[in-house]
């Protein structure tokens, strides 16, 4: 019955040049017109397998069969010609070009010697309507929100004739509503005969949308199931080999003095959009204040202001009474502010440096780590070994390159650094985005533990379950404004949150004002 498969990957092995055996004898099959979930913890080998299917990496051994024909996918362009398209977790778009130009990149319609821009826009609109994926063809990719970037990526693959779509963690960046929208699109694509590989860590989504599941562990494909025949709990256990308690246990918060005091922050971005609109709130010692909201509603800008990556037009922000506006990151860190950045590859780590070099980046000048003009190497080794141990970073040694670790372990390195420098305030921006269940659980527990030890935590997360579960109290941002404040997150429902997040409902100024504890 081999004919029913559009893709067969047989006994795939992949050893990277750094010696990591990412795939060891993996079998993976796709049926035509199915949505197939590929699951596994970070480092289980999912991305590697998909990169090989998309021709970005070559298998060390094994065979790939597409539509009954054995193929060598030597590059993505070969894979595309075989009808395979991929939407990466980290988007592969040219930020300085428009949406339409990105769509037709490499196959742009011409008018004489020049690219026919009108035609580009036309094609984009046509596909956008055909597949009901709304994008703004004329905007620069750098200026569009994450959700739209993803749609551009999907359309890009479709324009190139993809029949098999690989989506690497497509919902990691989306809100509940956007996710539902995406699911509708995917199902309609499926009904039109498209085959979709869906990589995700979210069990609910997997159950909701996929037909079959392949579960990988330690570089091997372990199990294949019909989705309806397996429970969430079973999947979770198969993935990590143990039952994961995603419910973080936490004691009652006992908030004390205000640590972070933000008043009337306003910011208009360079395209004249008001990103922060009179944002005021307090974060107190010993509490986790969550910020929920659809991505692109000012959360990123807010964090930028609080870590001085940008300067607000007006308003104030103080940590323990001292202003943090317009000073450099060194001073902000000296005041005890830590940031787990949203984009860990860009800000969180120096990929080609070692784990050791990455965990000391914020304290390379500290007395503890220096002996006069030279480093105290012993102290540095001790510190890094301790952190690797405490934060269960999976690595051969602290001398290993950070960039070679899996996403979850990279994030653990970031978190190890940010949590271990005696902070008074932790800004955690999407701390568990796109990382495996085990690492997620670990980081969430740590956040709760730290807050209970008297640290103020500001948590920004697009993962609604995370922000509702971890936060003691919660604010919702919409269109750069705080539209709701909930003193107690326990009684909240997803639906209620959704209404605030989409701007359907808004609390009165008095209700919102309670977030300023004066």
């Amino acid at each position, binding site marked *: 019955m081999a004919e029913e498969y559009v893709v067969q990957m047989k006994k795939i092995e992949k050893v990277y040049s750094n010696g990591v*055996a990412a795939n060891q004898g993996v079998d993976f099959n796709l049926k035509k017109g199915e949505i197939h979930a590929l699951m596994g913890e970070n480092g289980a080998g999912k991305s590697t397998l998909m990169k090989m299917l998309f021709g970005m990496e070559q298998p060390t051994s094994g065979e790939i069969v597409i539509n009954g024909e054995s193929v060598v996918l030597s590059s993505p362009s070969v894979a595309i010609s075989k009808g395979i398209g991929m939407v990466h977790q980290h988007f592969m778009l040219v930020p300085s070009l428009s949406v339409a130009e990105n769509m037709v990149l490499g196959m742009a319609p011409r008018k004489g010697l020049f690219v026919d821009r009108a035609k580009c826009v036309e094609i984009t609109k046509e596909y956008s309507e055909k597949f009901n994926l709304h994008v703004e063809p004329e905007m620069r990719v750098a200026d569009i929100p994450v959700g739209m970037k993803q749609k551009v990526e999907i359309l890009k693959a479709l324009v190139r004739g993809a029949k098999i779509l690989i989506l690497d963690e497509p919902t990691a960046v989306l809100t509940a509503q956007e996710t539902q929208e995406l699911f509708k699109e995917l199902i309609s694509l499926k009904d039109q005969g498209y085959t979709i590989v869906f990589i995700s860590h979210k069990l609910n989504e997997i159950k909701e949308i996929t037909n079959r599941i392949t579960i990988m562990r330690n570089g091997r494909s372990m199990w294949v199931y019909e989705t309806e025949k397996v429970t969430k709990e079973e999947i979770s256990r198969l993935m990590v080999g143990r039952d994961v308690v995603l419910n973080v246990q936490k004691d009652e918060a006992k908030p004390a003095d205000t640590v972070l005091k933000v008043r009337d922050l306003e910011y208009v971005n360079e395209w004249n959009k008001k990103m922060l609109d009179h944002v005021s709130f307090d974060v107190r010692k010993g509490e986790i204040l969550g910020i929920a909201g659809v991505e692109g509603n000012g959360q990123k800008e807010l964090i930028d202001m609080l870590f001085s990556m940008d300067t607000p037009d007006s308003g104030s922000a103080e940590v323990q009474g001292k202003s943090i506006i317009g000073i450099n990151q060194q001073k902000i860190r*000296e005041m005890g502010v830590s940031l787990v950045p949203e984009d860990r590859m860009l800000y969180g780590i*120096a990929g080609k440096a070692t784990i050791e070099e990455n965990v000391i*980046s914020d304290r*390379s000048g500290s007395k503890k780590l220096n002996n006069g003009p030279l480093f105290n190497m012993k102290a540095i080794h001790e510190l890094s070994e301790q952190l690797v141990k405490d934060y269960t970073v999976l690595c051969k040694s602290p001398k290993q390159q950070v960039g070679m670790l899996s996403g979850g372990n990279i994030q653990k390195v970031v978190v190890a650094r940010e949590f271990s420098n005696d902070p008074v305030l932790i800004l955690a921006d999407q701390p568990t985005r796109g990382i495996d269940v085990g690492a997620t659980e670990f980081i969430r527990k740590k956040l709760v533990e730290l807050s209970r030890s008297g640290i103020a935590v500001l948590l920004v997360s697009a993962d609604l379950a995370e922000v509702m579960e971890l936060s003691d109290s919660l604010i919702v941002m919409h269109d750069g404004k705080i539209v709701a404040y909930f003193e107690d997150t326990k009684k909240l429902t997803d639906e209620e949150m959704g209404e605030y997040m989409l701007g359907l409902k808004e609390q009165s100024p008095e209700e919102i004002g309670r977030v300023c504890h004066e």
Partner: protein
Amino acid sequence: MSKKRQITFSLVRGALAILIALLVAMLLIFISAGGDTFGAKLAATGEALKQLLVGPLFRVNTNGVSFEGKRLADILAAMIPTTFTGLAVCIMFSANQFNLGAEGGIMLGAFVSGIVAIYVPMPPVIHAVAAVLIGGIAVGLVMLIPALLKVKLDVSEMVCSLMLNYIIMYFIKYLMNAYYADKSKGQIQTYPFLNSSRIAPLGSSPIFNSAKLTVGFVIALIAVVVCGLFMYRSRWGYQIRMIGINQDFAKYSGMKVGFIIVISQLIGGFLSGAGGGIEMLGRYPTFSWSALPGYGWTGITIAILAGNNPLFVPLAAFFMAYLQKGCDMMATYANVPMQLIDIVQGVIFLFFAAEQFLSKYRQKLVVKTAQEEIAAKAALAQEGGNANG
């Protein structure tokens, strides 16, 4: 990959690179070799290769092969300026600053040190030290131009420093013509350096009887160690490297990115300037350079070969000096045209610098090691299972 396999790979790769380069070189030499018959041509080629390979260290003649200490000393002497420029480039490139100013830097350092050596009398030793330091500081300050322009106005340091080389060269030529030339001499040169400023030869033992090999060689080696410590054992070197890898990360971590970028180029400028001073006061009686000496360009090659690691700079500098000497020998004793020398040098360098060279063989070794590791782990797990059971 295991340590042993890694070393095996490096050795095989290095040997093969040289072998292939030699084959190509042989072919080229053969084509251009003198002689009418095939045999004569072959003999001439063999002679040329011998000069290239062993000529730098040994005298080859009918009596056999004899070690020539002077030639080794010449090679070591040739390493002095290029070690300094190599270090300078290493540090600037590590910060991801493609400053090409080491070339002009070494000329300016040589000039400034020379001027101090002529016009500012001081006691011996102190004079030389002061002249070299002033030369270094002067170039360090000049490197502030590309560095500050980069940090403040985002001007490309590459373009700026490249142009700066020529500005420096012509500025020195102007100063020489207008003010400092000894008009009594036929060529444009300064008055002689005061004796107190001379950097002494390393010694006059019979093995190293070269006047060119000065104390500067020892200073260069000390500089290598200091730079190595600076880059891998100090917070500033660490910050330079982190900025080089990921500038956004460095800024987010609280490093003063702009400041460190400026510092890296200041240090690079100082090293190339000091190297120029040491070269000038050790080897020449007067300043008479009328063009860029080329040591800065060689420094870039050396830094790339050394992978921006200061500790590997002497090895790379030795390799380059040996190659140069071998080519000189070939030109002198085997009648190989000078143009061909450049090609041979290029081919050898090409294979050494080609990162992907033999990558398939490397991948095979990697796979083998990984499979062994997996097997070992499985065996261990089995054992553990049995023990538990």
